[in-house]
């Protein structure tokens, strides 16, 4: 689903892709809230019984941005295809729990600030909305669905200098912009990409090398 404010923001991409699956618009970031999504793209696997069998992960459908992200699309796509065909595993409940990041009170407070900002914006109170978008970004600086996601609304180019400066500051703080799971990233830290067991905790904090 698209974390976009209106269908028109996402329309061109959806129509170009002409998907055969449902392609939805999540203007109020409902799914981001329920699933603790803090950036895009984020993917999850859900099995036929409705259970999460791969928690929040970063995966691209193609290598268009590989030169920027350092992330190859093949690892996840290969694992996905194997899982769908019944030829490969999903994660065990223990692995899922190990890799899940649960929301904190500050994360939820940031989401409330974002939501209030959205409401104020749609009711013509842009200056007030801005205050809450900024506050949300302060409370959850890792939540780029807020810090970057509000840029189009605020008339800021989400791919322009302000975003690049934000990303640079984030990197200088030693924080990865994307947090793929170890087997998707192909990180050698804590398990050499093994899917047989949980990766060591250190691997969750590893820089993806961007």
């Amino acid at each position: 689903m698209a974390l976009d404010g209106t269908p028109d923001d996402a329309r061109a991409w959806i129509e170009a892709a002409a998907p055969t699956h449902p392609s939805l618009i999540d203007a109020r970031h409902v799914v981001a809230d329920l699933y603790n999504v803090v950036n895009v793209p984020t993917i999850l696997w859900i099995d036929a019984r409705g259970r999460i069998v791969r928690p929040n992960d970063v995966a691209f459908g193609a290598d268009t941005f590989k030169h920027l992200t350092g992330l190859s699309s093949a690892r996840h796509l290969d694992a996905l295809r194997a899982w769908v065909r019944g030829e490969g595993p999903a994660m065990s409940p223990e692995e899922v729990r190990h890799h899940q990041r649960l929301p904190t009170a500050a994360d939820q407070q940031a989401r409330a600030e974002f939501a209030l900002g959205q409401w104020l914006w749609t009711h013509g109170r842009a200056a007030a909305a801005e205050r809450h978008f900024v506050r949300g970004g302060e409370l959850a600086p890792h939540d780029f669905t807020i810090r970057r996601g509000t840029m189009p609304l605020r008339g800021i180019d989400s791919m322009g200098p302000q975003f690049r400066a934000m990303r640079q500051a984030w990197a200088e703080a030693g924080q990865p912009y994307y947090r793929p799971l170890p087997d998707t990233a192909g990180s050698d830290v804590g398990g050499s990409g093994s899917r047989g067991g949980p990766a060591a905790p250190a691997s969750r904090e590893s820089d993806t090398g961007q």
Partner: protein
Amino acid sequence: MDRLTLIDDERVVQLAARLDGDGVRLDPAALEKALGWTVHDGLLCNDAMCVPLADEGTLVSEAGIDLAGFARVLDRALAVDLAERAAFLGGSARERGQVLASQQAPDFTLPDLDGRPHSLSEHRGKKILLVVWASW
């Protein structure tokens, strides 16, 4: 008495309230009518549940029900804009975390480009790849 716009998920209600430097106090009758919550006998209740209050006197005074205290008792996030007389009641970190830790994917309903609603639960019985993306 002022009026506060309180947004609770998709519901937007106007409540009689007192807004001042100390925060927001809601008129109890207005809160009950709009959102179904009442405070009595040391409990905060709606139709579905009751939450025991450590200190009813802190939550409720002659001036009304403290909005921040109300949110805290329910463990819900709260964003307030006194100048704009608006507030948003968000999700509980504890509740969201418990759902995710159960590993049962939470259901949701969202529209497609044509405005037609789709729910995750409609697809039970199939393996699902959920992809969250954005034009930004």
